[in-house]
């Protein structure tokens, strides 16, 4: 779980950096997309790799849930939570919601079947017009909020699971995980918000 989580975390980072190029204008992001698509080996390699990683991440989670459900079949009448974060307790909720979002997100901006005016080559317009629909942006913001709480627990948990805990470094890792959560949310949220507020104008208005 830690290993697949780390791989997915790396993808999220690359995905965010790649997509933030939308602020550099249509030429930048469209040529970036064209470059990626020009090497099918890389695109399909990454897609299949990601699919396998997500699959393993979910599979190990289901195994874990089954072990843990068996370990405590009788619930407490009362249970107090004193130390755990909301992020850590809601991993089983944030996870499936993100998975459902990924399916929609792929249909929306990769396959295009859930997009009103999808273009194979004009990624910039896909983003701008896609996010101009307010409820699409709202769903996107909620999913990103959950993704970032998921990462908040995931990043620090990963180190602990792989056996790394240090009196000086672990508090730093926790701070880093929190900062990353907020930073990534800001990054991802900036795109739909920019499209909604008109900060990102449609392609033709820029000409």
């Amino acid at each position: 779980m830690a290993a697949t989580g780390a791989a997915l975390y790396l993808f999220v980072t690359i995905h965010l950096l790649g997509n933030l190029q939308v602020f550099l204008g249509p030429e930048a992001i469209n040529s970036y997309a064209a470059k990626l698509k020009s090497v099918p080996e890389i695109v399909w390699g990454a897609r299949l790799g990601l699919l396998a990683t997500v699959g393993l991440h979910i599979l190990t989670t289901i195994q874990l849930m089954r072990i843990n459900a068996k370990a405590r079949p009788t619930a407490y009448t009362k249970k107090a939570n004193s130390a755990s974060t909301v992020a850590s307790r809601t991993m089983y909720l944030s996870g499936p919601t993100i998975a459902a979002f990924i399916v929609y997100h792929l249909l929306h901006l990769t396959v295009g079947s859930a997009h009103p005016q999808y273009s194979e080559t004009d990624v910039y317009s896909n983003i701008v017009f896609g996010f101009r629909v307010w409820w699409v942006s709202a769903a996107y913001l909620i999913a990103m909020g959950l993704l970032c709480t998921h990462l908040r627990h995931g990043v620090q948990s990963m180190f602990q699971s792989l056996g790394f805990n240090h009196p000086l470094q672990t508090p730093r890792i926790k701070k880093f995980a929190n900062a990353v959560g907020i930073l990534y949310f800001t990054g991802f949220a900036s795109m739909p918000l920019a499209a909604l507020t008109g900060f990102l104008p449609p392609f033709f208005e820029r000409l």
Partner: protein
Amino acid sequence: MNLTLHVWRQANAAAPGRMVRYDARDVSEDMSFLEMLDVVNEKLIGEGKEPIAFEHDCREGICGSCGFMINGAAHGPQKGTTICQLHMRYFKDGEELYLEPWRATAFPVLKDLVVDRGAFDRIIAAGGFVSVRTGSAPDGNAIPVPKEAADTAMDAAACIGCGACVAACPNAAAALFTGAKISHLGMLPQGQAERSRRALRMVEQLTLEQFGSCTNIGECEAACPKQIPIEMIARMNRDHLKAAWQFRGAGKSGGGE
């Protein structure tokens, strides 16, 4: 002060249990929690009823016998305190308290608030022996131990095996207990000879006992009456990963038998 108690009553391991309401009257704030229950029990015995069963021994917080949930918190609301050392002054007059046994498949309820923690003993036993010289007492400081290692080993050795970590964990995992036991010997030079194999076998026993799996949530370290940190769990994971690599292909418990 007066309190209302809701206590889990279960006649034996096979019988179904339920929460029963009791009134605790004229409780002195200087009583420990167990002394308060003693008074409730004396009244029950006087009425010819079955007293509430709970485990206890030293009543000075060092034996690890006592422990149950008070309002969903293992050993009650006071940090770093076992139930026998928890005093009634931390509660308010008229408060309602829910007392429940540790809940885990690995800890079957024997009666009322008493659970069978034999799983912990089997984890310790799975760890096996430590190669130390027997005979006359060794010279003090004959084996140098770095200060940090001695401190960590001592922190780990503070574990009294009460089971609060399992009870507080949403997954009923015993990672903090096992981590403490592995760290306790693993930090010292005397524990190095069997360090890898010990980690491998104790973790293997941990899964056999049907404890849950750790998700690094941290409820255990907050509930631990000895305030053992989850750093011990990371050390267990590290030792286990290393050992699994070291003994790859040698069978699950590292062979040698």
